């Protein structure tokens, strides 16, 4: 289970997150949607302290970290309990696909190389990248790199996978293959929090949609509640903006 309580974050005078509360149960798949610049990425990055929040608590499983006095060990603990998939993949350029997936298993989890290798091969198979295990990131398409990045994150056994617009840098064909990979991971019961602009994908994959605007969570509910029956005015506007005119058709 992950729980965010009273999370606030400003950059200089720019209040990006204000008092955000969010709970995600094990096995849930939650998507955050909302206009550009409303703090979706920042929220994700505050959960594993890539960005240090100003205020609030983050809980993942047994570990609660308060922004008032987080120790290095606490922050490390959050990173161990979460996995992150970035918009720009961020694979290690000097490592092969296989080494990318093994690296943190060996260095951080202290698994033996043999064990790490077996696990890496298993995850690469799952994301359909086994044949590419000896290639370097520079030799892969964006979609392939993202699938490796997903395998790399999953191999660390995170309690939750955080995905920040995992397909927004990809063209439609590659977007599909990465989305299929994410669906497969979902079937295995991985808890996920996904920021995405791919509304169709979010609708069919997620248990819950969270709509954010200007640093607040405005409304959350099942895809059906949010897309066909939004309560808040701002949500309605956003949905209408996404599906102009005949947006009902999509639902």
């Amino acid at each position, binding site marked *: 289970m992950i729980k965010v309580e009273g999370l606030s974050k400003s950059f200089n005078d720019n209040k990006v997150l204000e008092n955000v509360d969010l709970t995600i149960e094990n096995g849930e798949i939650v998507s955050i949607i909302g206009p550009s610049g409303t703090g979706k990425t920042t929220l994700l990055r505050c959960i594993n302290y890539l960005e240090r929040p100003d205020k609030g608590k983050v809980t993942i499983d047994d570990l609660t970290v308060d922004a008032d006095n987080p120790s290095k060990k606490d922050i490390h603990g959050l990173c161990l309990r979460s996995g992150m998939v970035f918009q720009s993949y*961020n*694979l*290690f350029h*000097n490592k092969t696909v296989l080494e990318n997936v093994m*690296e*943190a298993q060996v260095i951080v989890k202290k698994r033996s190389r043999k064990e790490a290798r077996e696990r890496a091969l298993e995850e690469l198979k799952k994301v359909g990248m086994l044949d590419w295990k000896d290639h370097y990131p520079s030799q892969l398409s964006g979609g392939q790199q993202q699938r490796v990045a997903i395998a*790399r994150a999953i191999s660390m056994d995170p309690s939750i996978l955080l995905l920040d617009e995992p397909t927004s840098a990809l063209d439609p064909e590659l977007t599909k293959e990465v989305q299929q990979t994410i669906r497969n991971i979902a079937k295995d019961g991985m808890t996920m929090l996904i920021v995405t602009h791919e509304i169709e994908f979010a609708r069919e994959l997620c248990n819950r949609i969270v709509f954010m605007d200007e640093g607040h969570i405005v409304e959350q509910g099942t895809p059906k509640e949010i897309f066909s029956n939004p309560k808040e005015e701002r949500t309605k506007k956003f949905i209408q903006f996404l599906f102009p005119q005949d947006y009902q058709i999509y639902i």
Partner: protein
Amino acid sequence: MNFSWEFVLDTIKYVAMAIPMTMLLTFIPVTVGLMLGFLLAVTRIRKIPVLTQIITVYNSFFRSIPLVVLFFLVYYGLPKAINYMFHDGMRVVSIKHLNNNAVAIVTLILYAAAFLGEIVRGALSSVDMKQKEAATALGMTGWQTYIRIIIPQAIIVALPNYFNFVLALLKGTSVVFTISVVDMMSAAKLRAEYGYRYVEAYVLVGFFYIVFSILFSRIFLAIERNAKRHMGQTI
């Protein structure tokens, strides 16, 4: 024209005996200078106040001054500086009291550090730092990330510039005759003056420099190729 092959053959052994000195003058500075340069680069990247400004001045001094001027300055200036600092300006120490070889090596280390620091800085800042975020998110520490991810990539970027500097310094060391250090060039010069055979001596020593330059650039190119392969690139 009277070109004495006999003199050339005779001089080979004198120049050859000075090879180790030329190699020491090249490879000690590019090794120690690299470590020093790394510290300079990190200090500049982290923008540590005061030190960063000092390093900027240091770099532009050593990168702007010709080596031969630097060595003359050391030759005439260093004893003076020591006398002013420790002996109230009395002429106690002269260049004869100093170990010229050591002075040359230290000077070249300081010179190399300025160049190599800039090369390292450029290489480090060319590495995509989003990888560092990914590593942090995976639970790797800053050190682990630098040692295993960032620095290996920076090395690959830095290698061509680094090796260029090594080759330039190999030739640059030939000015140490100004402070009476006996490297290949000095050895040739001494023989030339001894036998009044200048052309022969300098043709010979020029040949030595060319051979070593070609040899090392071959080796360096092979190393670069091999390193690039470790990032899935080909030259």
